[in-house]
């Protein structure tokens, strides 16, 4: 067959697509593996073709960029330089001890029951991130969805999640979600953001370097205005109400220190609450490969290499910063991997423009991160009877008891002593909440299986690797 070196890219979002295109254009055979049915990732999530989307453009920014990536992918696929494996859920990437190549183990089929392994000379992890949602009374009611979940429903299925929505939490993602819901015909009763407008101003220097981003924000704001959406800055949702499903939320005003101002709360009727508190990187695959993390993100060098030979990472997996940053990092990673796989040292001058925007966008992301931190007092406001871990139905009181009464001091022992994080999602959902409630540092949980794997698939792995 072919003599060209083979790169496996996990994740077909902006980062993975940019990486795959950059590498394929430089003589590398690429297999792009993604869990979704179509390319695009979180940002360019595609309405399923069959639904005959009316005006997907109205829901998308940077539509041009997306078209360029999509056309590039089509070209490289027809040329046989990229193979795109859709609906492939990677549960583990293994570095083979013999020759230092890799086995990318995935599940496919309607029920994800069939095991497949892709062999490659190098891997590039572009697995993106997932949403952080912090618990509050009522957050498990039907009708409460994550902000990203609401967005995905809009972009992917074009199903309107409810008629009257509140969008709440913190972070820049709330704006496009509120705008998207409004544009799709929902009444958005309020956008509730815990950060204050003054905090944004204090970050002016870093933000000022971002005309494009600010314009994007301003565009959303204008659209919200046009749809009559009320924005409540320095407010928070303290409780969701309803018996069978959501009927209302209580919104409270926060003081300058992020504490609830006594007496300053009101009830807002709604049947949908889209809530999010920012994003966290997906690092399971990287961790199992032995890549060092910094904080909760995969650590990379200037070429986007991890500290495990043959493993690159790009996009949200290496730190949260938006689609533009993911594109820049993916491009650099793809070029670096291509050069290294051909046995040459890459010339960073070739990607100088991408490197500049990477620097700029990372500064911007750091500035946003400081602005959009969850309000300091949130954890104390969670009553003991609020369920924190949905999978195992563990309450805030039980989680606190693991520390106060039983001697836990990190997330792992809190899990062992309370079962919070032991269920189906393996703590992806509740770990940030548990960390906040207990004061334990939020560390990336060790999850050797990025997806639940049928035992039959494990048993059928090749005997000697």
């Amino acid at each position, binding site marked *: 067959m072919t003599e060209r070196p083979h790169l496996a890219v996990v994740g077909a979002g902006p980062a993975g697509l940019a990486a795959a295109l950059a590498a394929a254009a430089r003589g590398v055979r690429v297999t792009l593996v993604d869990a979704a049915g179509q390319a695009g990732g979180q940002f360019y999530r595609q309405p399923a073709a069959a639904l005959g989307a009316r005006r997907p453009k109205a829901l998308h920014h940077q539509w041009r960029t997306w078209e360029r990536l999509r056309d590039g992918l089509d070209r490289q696929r027809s040329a046989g330089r990229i193979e795109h494996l859709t609906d492939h859920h990677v549960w*583990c990437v*293994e570095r083979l001890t013999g020759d230092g190549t890799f086995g990318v*183990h995935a599940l496919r089929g309607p029920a994800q*029951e069939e095991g497949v392994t892709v062999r490659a000379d190098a891997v590039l992890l572009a697995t993106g991130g997932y949403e952080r949602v912090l618990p509050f009374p009522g957050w498990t009611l039907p009708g409460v969805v994550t902000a990203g979940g609401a967005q995905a429903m809009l972009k992917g299925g074009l199903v309107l999640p409810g008629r009257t929505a509140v969008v709440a939490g913190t972070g820049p993602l709330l704006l496009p979600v509120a705008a998207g819901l409004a544009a799709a015909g929902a009444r958005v009763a309020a956008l509730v953001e815990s950060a204050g407008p003054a905090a944004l101003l204090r970050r002016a220097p870093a933000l000022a370097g971002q005309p494009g981003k600010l314009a994007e924000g301003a565009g959303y704001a204008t659209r919200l205005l046009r749809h009559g959406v009320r924005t409540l800055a320095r407010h928070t949702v303290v409780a969701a109400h309803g018996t069978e499903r959501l009927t209302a939320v209580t919104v409270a005003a926060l003081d300058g220190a992020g504490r609830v101002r006594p007496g300053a709360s009101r009830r807002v009727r709604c049947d949908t609450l889209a809530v999010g508190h920012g994003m966290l990187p997906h690092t399971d695959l990287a961790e*199992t490969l*032995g890549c060092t993390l910094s904080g909760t993100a995969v650590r990379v060098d200037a070429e986007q290499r991890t500290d495990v030979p043959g493993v690159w990472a790009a996009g949200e997996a290496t730190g949260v910063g938006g689609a533009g940053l993911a594109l820049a990092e993916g491009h650099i990673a793809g070029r670096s991997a291509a050069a290294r796989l051909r046995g040459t040292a890459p010339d960073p001058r070739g990607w100088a423009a991408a490197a500049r925007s990477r620097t700029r966008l990372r500064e911007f992301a750091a500035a946003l991160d400081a602005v959009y931190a969850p309000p300091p007092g949130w954890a104390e406001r969670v009553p003991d009877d609020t369920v924190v871990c949905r999978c*195992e139905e563990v309450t805030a009181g039980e989680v606190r008891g693991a520390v106060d*009464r*039983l*001697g*836990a*001091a*990190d997330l*792992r*022992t809190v899990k*062992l*002593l309370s*079962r919070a994080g*032991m*269920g*189906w999602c*393996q703590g992806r959902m509740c770990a940030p909440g548990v960390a906040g409630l207990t004061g334990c540092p939020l560390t990336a949980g*060790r*999850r*050797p*299986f990025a997806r*639940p*794997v*049928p*035992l*039959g698939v*494990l*048993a059928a*792995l090749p*005997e*000697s*690797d």
Partner: protein
Amino acid sequence: MTKRLTCDVVVVGAGMVGAACALYAARAGLDVRVVDRGPVAGGTTGAGEGNLLVSDKEPGPELELALLSARLWTGLAEELGPAIEYEPKGGLVVASTPGALAALRDFAAAQRTAGVTAQPVEADRLRDLEPHLAPGMAGGVRYPQDAQVMPALAAAQLLRASGAVLHTGRTVTGVLRTARGAVRGVRTDRGDLHAPAVVNAAGTWGGDLAALAGARLPVLPRRGFVLVTEPLPRRVRHKVYAADYVADVASDSAALRTSPVVEGTAAGPVLIGATRERVGFDRSLSLPAVRALAAGAIGLFPFLERVRALRTYAGFRPYLPDHLPAIGPDPRVPGLFHACGHEGAGIGLAPGTGRLIARTLAGEAPELDLTPFRPERFDTEKGGTP
């Protein structure tokens, strides 16, 4: 000139064994403090399983300790049962071939003479006990004394019940000794604790702790992986494992040996474990190890083929060259007591160990002869204490 004492005993290690030592020492009237560099159950106790087995032990000192412990577990269960998820579910050891069955029956006969209840089960009765067991097994033996706890909860609850002062996040960096060499406490990264007795319950790191007191104790790590499935309605009733497990425990081979114990838990997931490898402290995922666990479990319960594993984790069993723990006073360092090296049975053997340690701390005669567990037993073969 003696410093004021902090307490009567410092237990180093807040794992299962340290917790049991603290409990029984406190109940013997001693003022106890427990120190751990991490949280409670942050060592091997939080990285293993909670089988309390007599079934896998041949007659000898370890079995005697297991039987003593099994009795003590029954008592603890009356006090703490649900809080430690104690389940007296019994074990079922199966053999797939007539040869393996003959070996298993001989093994069981010897165990019976040592006080183990071991009931032969004919091939056609196996499915009465385990309806989902693979067909075609040659037969088995049922062990009603086998039971189960959730190890991390058991350690935490025993510590709580002991009333001992617990210092987590505090590392022992030295063992304080008098001019004559006797123990007078421990040095930690956050101050000294003064006591005339120190219990080494540092598990896999027990050799390092002994070295701080100038004593040699060759504790080594033996890695094990466990697979955990999605929660299921109870379909596996006993602790079920294949008969080659018994040969494996005593094996001296460094290669991977697997014969998984399959069991349902109170919370729903099925646990499959564990592998045994000597690879030092390497925590990285071994797909061959989990492959072997999965294959072994499906061999026993074919329905598991389509069940999903949610996670896998590894721990490092503390073992000594002769596969027996070190329990009792160290004659080389007066005031130092060892309670470590329990390999793959430290949860099960913890109460017995704690009781023996408490007796010796209080100057009373222990229930069992401690000679086989002497901590200095490895000196003679290697020519004396370093």
